[in-house]
């Protein structure tokens, strides 16, 4: 290593070695964003440390490829998966790499028929001899020939299994089995039986292989599909088992919004030259303006009070709204949150003290899932916190406005609307259901500056973007 480094002569190593190249693909499949430049870095780093020490190799690639704690976890998983599989393939892979070399022209002439007669005969022979090692390597090579690394979706699984088996010579074996059966001899029947049993086993291992590859290469795509689905389905309908995934989604969405608005706020701060201050500051140099001072506009971060209905079906939406709001602390200031069903309490404390996921769970446990009384809750709010609502406060009320036929106390809404900068009402019910049954939505509506249907993550994102857009 003492010699001159191939620094910046990246193209030299641009074609990363085969195992690394495949691993990069696996890493991308696992959801890591590996840019071309990082790929080159990885190749150079691996050049430096070699493949011998698995631990060092893992550390090295981790340094180059995974850049957040989440990515580190994904990376670890992908690394283990990949190299565990490599170990399984082990010697087989070495054989297979040699195999195509035997008949380099073979692929040019064929489509379904690989290499030559010996190839076809070998599958049934292999099956008869029960030569598992060779079968495994044949499977691996067939898989590579049909382009297994392009697998993305679960629905493609059977297609690939079929293709791999056909590439290995499935039809011949089937024909042979049929022929043996037809001949009618007891001996032949036995052989046919044995063949089809082993073929079944081969099919199983092909399925295994495809599933593992699916895990390796197709994860990102599947994730994306699932995320898209989750973002647009009603929060109330989402299975609790998906909630962890939802939290991750909320966090990434919030992060995106936060960066966008943080930049916006700063851009607006750029003002004009403040002549008075500039002159004063440069008095020492006879007024020659070496140091300039600029007029600045103070942009207020929106102050937010969130009132969340935590009863029944609304609770799940509340959970995600709170999560969203608290993930946005960078661009919001002075967040106060309240939970209500029959009555109303402030929950800011809990939400600030604990990590948001745990806090939301606690709030729900303390208050959630009762039957709601809007009039009562509004009265509670007026008694306790009306004073703190100013003309800078945005009030977000989340609820279905179904007060179980209690007095809606719209006069309190009126007073709130007069004090607050604006009131945003988020209703998880579709618009067609507003005002039906015990819904007081239309009674509250006149006092709201904005009322939105809010039942999916996408809705939530839109509402919050609105909130920030109009804050300035």
């Amino acid at each position, binding site marked *: 290593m003492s010699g001159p480094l191939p*620094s910046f002569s990246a193209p030299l190593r641009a074609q990363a070695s085969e195992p690394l190249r495949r691993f990069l693909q696996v890493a991308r499949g696992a959801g890591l964003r590996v*840019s071309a430049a990082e790929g080159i870095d990885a190749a*150079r*780093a691996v050049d430096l440390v070699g493949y011998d020490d698995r631990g060092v190799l893992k550390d090295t690639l981790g*340094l180059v490829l995974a850049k*957040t704690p989440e990515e580190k976890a994904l990376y670890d998983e992908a690394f283990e998966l990949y190299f565990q599989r490599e170990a399984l393939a082990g010697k087989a892979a070495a054989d297979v790499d040699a195999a195509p070399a035997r008949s380099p022209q073979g692929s040019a002439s064929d489509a379904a028929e690989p290499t030559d007669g010996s190839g076809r005969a070998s599958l049934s022979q292999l099956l008869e001899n029960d030569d598992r090692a060779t079968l495994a390597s044949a499977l691996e090579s067939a898989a590579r020939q049909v382009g297994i690394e392009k697998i993305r979706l679960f629905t493609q699984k059977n297609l690939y299994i079929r293709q791999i088996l056909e590439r290995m010579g499935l039809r011949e074996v089937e024909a042979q089995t049929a022929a043996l059966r037809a001949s009618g001899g007891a001996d032949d029947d036995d052989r046919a039986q044995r063949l089809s049993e082993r073929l079944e086993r081969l099919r199983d291992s092909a399925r295994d292989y495809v599933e593992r590859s699916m895990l390796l290469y197709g994860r990102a795509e599947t994730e994306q599909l699932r995320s898209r689905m989750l973002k647009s389905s009603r929060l109330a309908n989402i299975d609790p088992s998906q909630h962890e995934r939802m939290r991750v989604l909320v966090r990434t969405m919030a992060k995106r919004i936060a960066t966008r608005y943080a*930049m916006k706020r700063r851009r607006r701060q750029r003002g004009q030259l403040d002549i008075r201050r500039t002159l004063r500051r440069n008095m020492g140099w006879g007024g020659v303006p*070496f140091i300039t001072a600029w007029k600045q506009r103070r942009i207020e971060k929106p102050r937010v009070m969130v009132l969340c209905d935590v009863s029944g079906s609304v609770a799940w939406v509340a959970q995600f709204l709170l999560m969203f709001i608290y993930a946005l602390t*960078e661009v919001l200031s002075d967040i106060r949150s309240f939970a209500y069903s029959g009555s109303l309490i402030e929950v800011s404390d809990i939400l600030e003290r604990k990590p948001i996921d745990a806090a939301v769970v606690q709030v729900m446990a303390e208050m959630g899932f009762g039957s709601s009384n809007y009039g009562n809750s509004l009265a509670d709010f007026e008694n306790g916190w009306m004073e703190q609502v100013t003309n800078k406060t945005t009030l977000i009320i989340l609820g279905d406005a179904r007060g179980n036929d209690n007095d809606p106390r719209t006069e309190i809404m009126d007073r709130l609307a007069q004090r607050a900068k604006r009131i945003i009402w988020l209703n998880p019910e579709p618009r067609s259901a507003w005002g039906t049954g015990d819904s007081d939505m239309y009674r509250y509506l006149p006092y709201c500056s904005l009322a939105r249907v809010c039942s999916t993550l996408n809705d939530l994102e839109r509402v919050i973007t609105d909130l920030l857009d109009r804050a300035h």
Partner: protein
Amino acid sequence: MPSSQKSTPSRPIESIESVFAGLGIAGYIASRQIATAIYIAHHLQKPILVEGPAGVGKTELAKSVASWLELPLIRMQCYEGLDESKALYEWKYGKQLLYTQILREKVGSVIGDADDLATAIGKLHAFGDIFFSKSFLEPRPLLRALEQPEGAVLLIDEIDKSDQEFEAFLLELLSDYQVSIPEIGSITAVVKPIVLLTSNSTRDLGDALKRRCLHLHIGFPDEKLEARIIASRVPGIDARLLAQLVSFVQQLRSLDLKKQPSVSESIDWARVLVLLHASVLEEQVVRDTLNVLLKFESDIDAARAHITHLTQRAQQAVVVED
């Protein structure tokens, strides 16, 4: 292109083992991951972004690398509002002002007998434009790091505290080891410095920055490593006490605390215990000194309930032989 530059500091980094040993001499007990990071960073000439909880030795790592390689450590503490005039360079306004005054007085003698404006301007042009030249430049940490003849260790501390603009401004430095000064042009590093950035993840850093760096995450060390670290920092400590103390701290970290005790805290605690002439961990001593480990009242309250139990378990800890 930059092949003419030297990239080897005064001591070569030959292997991961040599990084281990070197940092060990400098008093930093590194994990394999850390040593690998320094080794790779040096050979790929890439900055390292070091993340992890406060007090696990992120800043210490930079100091130790510098002292091991006998390079100057140039440290830049980031904060909100930090801009290039504080990080990179500033013009020496006072000197420039003097220069203009001198110029005003001498301008007559320079122009002298010129008859018309064109000749006068021509004569003025003949003088080099030194107004915006290096002699009026006040180098700040980043520029200084590039100008070190022997190379340097540049520590950009708590990059997450700076603004996004500043982060973008750093990109040129991090990828090409050069900076651009509009009036002068770009200045390239004499010897590429070893750059370490630290972050406590108070905000997420941009992808562009991350892409240019190796990413090293330093977490809390495991029991064995922590014992070695403390032993190297608090030489006089009793082996039994050390084992018990480490076991206690490790258990404490598994509690639900606002701020978990970090390595720096356990070192402090070890010092306190040595000062108190403790040779074994006793419940009363733990109770009295818990505020060294935990910094929040609520955490101390939360931990108090478990002290008896934790101490008992810690007392069973066996001395780790190295």
